[in-house]
């Protein structure tokens, strides 16, 4: 049932997202949108000297699913290495969300992860890896 997509903790993340805002000196900055829905996500990441996520912030607008899943994502990736984040898949996102994502809404649910992974690729390309 679709209503299950809108459980209270999802709506909590949507109304009061975690790690919302910008960073002082981010190492990774990336944003993208889902043109089909108009969902937008902007992510900034500060890394420690081991290339682990020291801090992360996001801003965005869009549907509850895209914004809540990005909020949850930012919590989950703190302390993770870039390699670990690059290995994440949409199934990881679905597990964190703990709600049935209807096929038409998958793009909303994984937007945050796509933006973060694209940001990492740009960052690594810049650093010549």
């Amino acid at each position: 049932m679709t209503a299950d997509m809108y459980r209270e903790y999802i709506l909590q993340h949507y109304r009061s997202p975690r790690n919302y805002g910008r960073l002082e000196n981010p190492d990774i900055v990336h944003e993208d949108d889902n043109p089909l829905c108009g969902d937008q996500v902007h992510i900034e990441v500060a890394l420690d000297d081991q290339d682990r996520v020291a801090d992360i912030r996001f801003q965005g607008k869009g549907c509850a699913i895209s914004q809540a899943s990005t909020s949850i994502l930012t919590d989950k990736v703190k302390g993770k290495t870039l390699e670990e984040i690059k290995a994440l898949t949409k199934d990881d996102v679905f597990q964190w969300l703990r709600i049935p994502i209807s096929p038409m809404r998958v793009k909303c649910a994984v937007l945050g992860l796509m933006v973060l992974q694209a940001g990492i690729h740009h960052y690594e390309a810049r650093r010549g890896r």
Partner: protein
Amino acid sequence: MRGMPVDIEAVRRDFPILARQVHGKRLVYLDNAATTQKPAAVIEALDRYYRNYNANVHRSVHKLAEEATLAYESARQEVARFLNAARPEEVVFTSGTTEALNLVAYAWGRANVRAGDAIVYTDIEHHSNLVPWQLLAEAVGAEIRVVEVDPEAGLDLDRLEAVLDERVRLVTLPHISNVLGLELPVAEVARRAHQVGAVVVVDAAQSAPQQPIDVQALGCDFLALSGHKLYGPTGIGVLWGRYELLAAMPPFLGGGEMIRRVGLTRSTFADPPARFEAGTPKIAGAIGLGAAVEYLEGLGMDRVAAHDRALAAQAHEALLEVPGVTVYGPPPDRRAGLVAFSLDDIHAHDLASLVDTEGVAIRAGHHCCMPLHDRLGVPATARASFAVYNGPDDIEALVRAVHAARKVFNR
């Protein structure tokens, strides 16, 4: 009978899909501007063709081919009558509105629009009536002029006049906006465009299912529509064009069916409509569309128009009663059969997903009108669109579902 309203219960019995349930609830299908459901008459016409006389048309001389050809060409006559075309040869079967518009942009456009010429369209076009002209303008070096349409008041003809001059070769517009439910004054636009010698192309994807279309009264030069939005099958559509224009146009796609004589280095081409129907045509699709048109004529397009508009007006008013709802487009009394709306800052996709749990199918998104949504200042809207089988009970279900969605978001 004219004057009598549509008998909703009888019509519903004609649409087998309405018997099914969605999430355990009665299906309330309000996504008709995307595609309509199909009456049994259409489904049975397809079934009859495939079971009894499936054959390729025009070429073979056997019995099945004769029956298939007759049915295919009868469908063309049905559609010609439906549009009040001067002759059936003005009806070209395409895969849909998109292909019909591209056919004009490629075949007519590349032969008639040159560097320095201008193309005029509105800022409320569906992407299918934007992109083909953008590609044409880029290919030949033509200029694009955009006429702004007020979402509520409609098209101000003075704004159109302001961009019309001798350089304008083509003016195109939607008959009814698929987002705003706004009807544009096609006949007036055509009269003014013709004064500067421009050709007028009408996107009738939304109007053809909703109201009688008379291409001669509209005075346009080309008109495009989709079969699947007109209670017919997917994969079939129509380009209607004035015969002299079609006859003077080079082909679009090359292949079988569209030729007169083929040599190894050059060929001559058939007369319209065959010139524009390369390859084996959409035989079943055309037969299904013919059945759809016949079904609609049985109901009477005047009654269909009155029915769809009454429901849209009622839905508009009922939705405005819900706190936080904004409705886009003209007032109820000037509204065609659809209503786009938003609810507070709740994203349209969230709204559509929640409404779906109540068995109510609506559309959410930019409805292939990104420029218009930029103008409205929202990334997406929800849209309820009406058809002959919808009734006041469907509007009640929609409004109930929107209220329920508000609760989920604590609004």
